[in-house]
């Protein structure tokens, strides 16, 4: 009897949660603030600065979504999530949106029931070695000691790669990036492997960056992007198209600086639709028609966000590479705004 009551309560609770989650946009609007799950601290991608304001490549996606909904990029409550808590935080509704360098994989998409709204950074696992090791390819790392964080997909990727190339290595397990950097610097391992973006950031802060090289091989695909829960497709659309609006803006040459000028002078019908001058694009998702304009005006288009946080002008100096627009040989491609 008691069990029935207990499970009944549970089921009711789940049902209520389901009903409430059906209208994420309404919840967010009623709350007046977007709950965005971010990294507890990752250089360039998301971390609070000295004043406690969140900054970074991922954080700017949160800001763009908030700007699209409220017309105000500051209406975000950042919820720092760790590797362990991130997916539960999203699944339980604690955050509306998770932008935390999370790799889009099959099982996360299906089994964990999430939808990736896009890929804001195409990453991949690489290697960094000392220059005096005289290695120019990862295939020459036979018998090397390699620093690697445990419990991550990087560990599995590494094992797969060395097995398929029939070479051997000795793993040196490290706790986190800082630990890895220290061990690598102290010579505890010949190579350090993690995502290429992380390697670039680490290399930039080593005492003599020029003594180290990042090997050309990228041994895994790590598409990182913003994700939402299953069950509210409209909410997924809002995040997805906000991101695409940033991409399209770069393609169309709309920047934070010239957006007003473009809006008043453009004759390109697609730009007019994006900026809400023509058509009812915003209404279709339950937003204002100038949603995309607000999102772009917040921190600029995709290229501007990239350059400001992790691009060649920053100490991290990441090249656009795969993250260039499709028109420039990259993979970033926005479907048409029509």
């Amino acid at each position: 009897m008691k069990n029935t009551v207990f499970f009944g309560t549970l089921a009711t609770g789940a049902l209520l949660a389901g009903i409430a989650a059906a209208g994420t946009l309404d919840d967010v609007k009623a709350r007046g603030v977007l709950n965005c799950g971010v990294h507890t601290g990752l250089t360039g991608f998301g971390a609070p600065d000295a004043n406690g304001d969140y900054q970074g490549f991922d954080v700017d996606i949160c800001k763009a979504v908030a700007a699209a909904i409220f017309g105000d990029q500051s209406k975000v409550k950042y919820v720092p999530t760790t590797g362990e808590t991130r997916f539960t935080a999203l699944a339980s509704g604690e955050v509306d949106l998770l932008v935390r360098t999370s790799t889009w994989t099959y099982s996360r998409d299906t089994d964990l029931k999430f939808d990736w709204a896009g890929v804001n950074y195409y990453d991949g696992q690489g290697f960094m070695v000392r220059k005096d090791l005289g290695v120019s390819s990862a295939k020459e790392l036979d018998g090397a000691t390699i620093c690697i964080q445990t419990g991550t997909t990087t560990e599995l990727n590494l094992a797969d790669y060395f097995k398929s190339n029939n070479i051997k290595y000795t793993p040196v397990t490290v706790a986190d990036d800082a630990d890895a950097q220290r061990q690598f610097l102290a010579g505890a391992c010949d190579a350090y492997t993690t995502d290429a973006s992380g390697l670039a950031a680490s290399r930039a802060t080593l005492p003599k960056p020029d003594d180290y090289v990042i090997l050309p091989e990228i041994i895994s695909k790590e598409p990182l992007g913003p994700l939402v829960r299953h069950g509210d497709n409209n909410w997924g659309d809002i995040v997805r198209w906000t991101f695409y609006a940033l991409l399209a803006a770069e393609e169309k040459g709309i920047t934070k600086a010239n957006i007003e000028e473009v809006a008043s002078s453009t004759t390109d019908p697609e730009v007019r639709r994006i900026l809400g001058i023509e058509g009812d694009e915003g209404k279709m998702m339950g937003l204002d028609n100038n949603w995309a304009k607000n999102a772009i005006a917040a921190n600029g288009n995709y290229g501007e966000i990239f350059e400001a946080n992790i691009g060649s002008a920053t100490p991290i100096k990441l090249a656009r590479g795969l993250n260039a627009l499709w028109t420039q040989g990259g993979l970033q491609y926005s479907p048409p705004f029509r």
Partner: protein
Amino acid sequence: MQFTRTEMLPPQPPPVSQSGAVKWVRENLFSGPLNTILTLLSILVVYYLLNLSLPWLLHGVWNASSLTECRTIIAANFGPDAGGGCWAMIHARWYQWIFGFYPPEVYWRPILNFGLLFVAMAPILFSDNLRGSVKLVGTVAVLTIIALTLAQGPWWVFALCSALMLASVAVALLAPRYLLVATVLYPFATVWLLWGGSIWGPVTAMLGFVVLVLVYRPLSPRLGVVMATSLAVVAAAIWWGVLDSYVAAALEQVVSLSIQPVESDKFGGFLLAFLIGVSSISISLPIGILLALGRQSDMFLIKTLSVAFIEFVRGVPLITMLFTASLLLQYFLPPQVQFDLILRVIILVTLFSAAYNAEVIRGGLAALPKGQYEAADALGMDYWQAQRLIIMPQALKVSIPGIVSTFIGLFKDTTLVSFVGLQDPLRGITTIVRADINWKGIYWEPYIFVGVIFFAACYGMSRYSLYLERKLHTDHR
């Protein structure tokens, strides 16, 4: 021929080998072959450690804007291969280590609150030691006022806070018993000072306890302790659950006394560690006592519940409790209900530590001879009188080392909250500082800095427990 000495010879100093440092060294360090070998080995180890760490510590840089600049300064001063600590990182992010993201314009609130913490603790820590209490309150008042001058804020806030601290010193000097008023008010003042908002929320919450007492007092002689307690708790629960918010809102309408609200996600650094540590420590002790008594009780239900609670909580790792606080509770609550994460964590850490305390105190209870209980009964005391006047003072005295150990462990465990995304000083703030490209690559310095502060706090607790043991050591003299 006879010779008789008429005056005493002046005493000779003992041989060199039998006195002073030489004697001590010979007796303690080189008394035998094994001891000599061990001494030499120890000297080697100490030399090796100092050789490794001293240059690094001495080369430390305190003023720089980035790790690269630190390295440049060290290379310029001590040669290209020299290593050194980059303490400038602490300098640059000092406020974040201490307050997390607390708004800078109201730093005076946590500072004042921290000062008042010692004022509130003084009458408990030094219950019959006026000098100790005055010394503590006086030192804290001076330090708080100095800290307040360094914080931003309007002059009248500074004046008000200083006046409050000086008044506490005066009370500690002239009427030490009235400091207990500060102790009682302190928890509510903490909530108001740290989270801000209307003052009427904490005040009406406090009134709940008044309701509890008002119901208990007249009922207990008639209905007995158990019934009266239950009814009082029910009445208080009705107050907190139903009436509290309406009364608070009404009072706010009449007299608006609000300060700037601060959200929980702004809390971090040592502010968070001390907030969780102090609240959990102070709440877990009474709960622990009740659980220990419950476990010894003759009443089947109370005994079973206590045993089940203690065994369950002690059998589960703290990190599991924290994940429960952070994640599982959220599943059971509807998405609109945002039950404060810090509050959730404090509750579960408190329960965790209460279960441990209960067992430590049960050990103290078990150490008492049966005669003590019987003597209390023979004097005609009821259960609570016996506990309060005879059993608990002795049991707690025996349990002091164990209780303080639990507290020290609990305080250090507050760093685990970083696993649920709170900004604790050890991992949370360190990650944030390291995520800044200027400080990325820094490794030992944050750990050493945080370690030193934790050591100071824990060592303080440990010294106090020794003092308390000495003071209460009354039976065998």
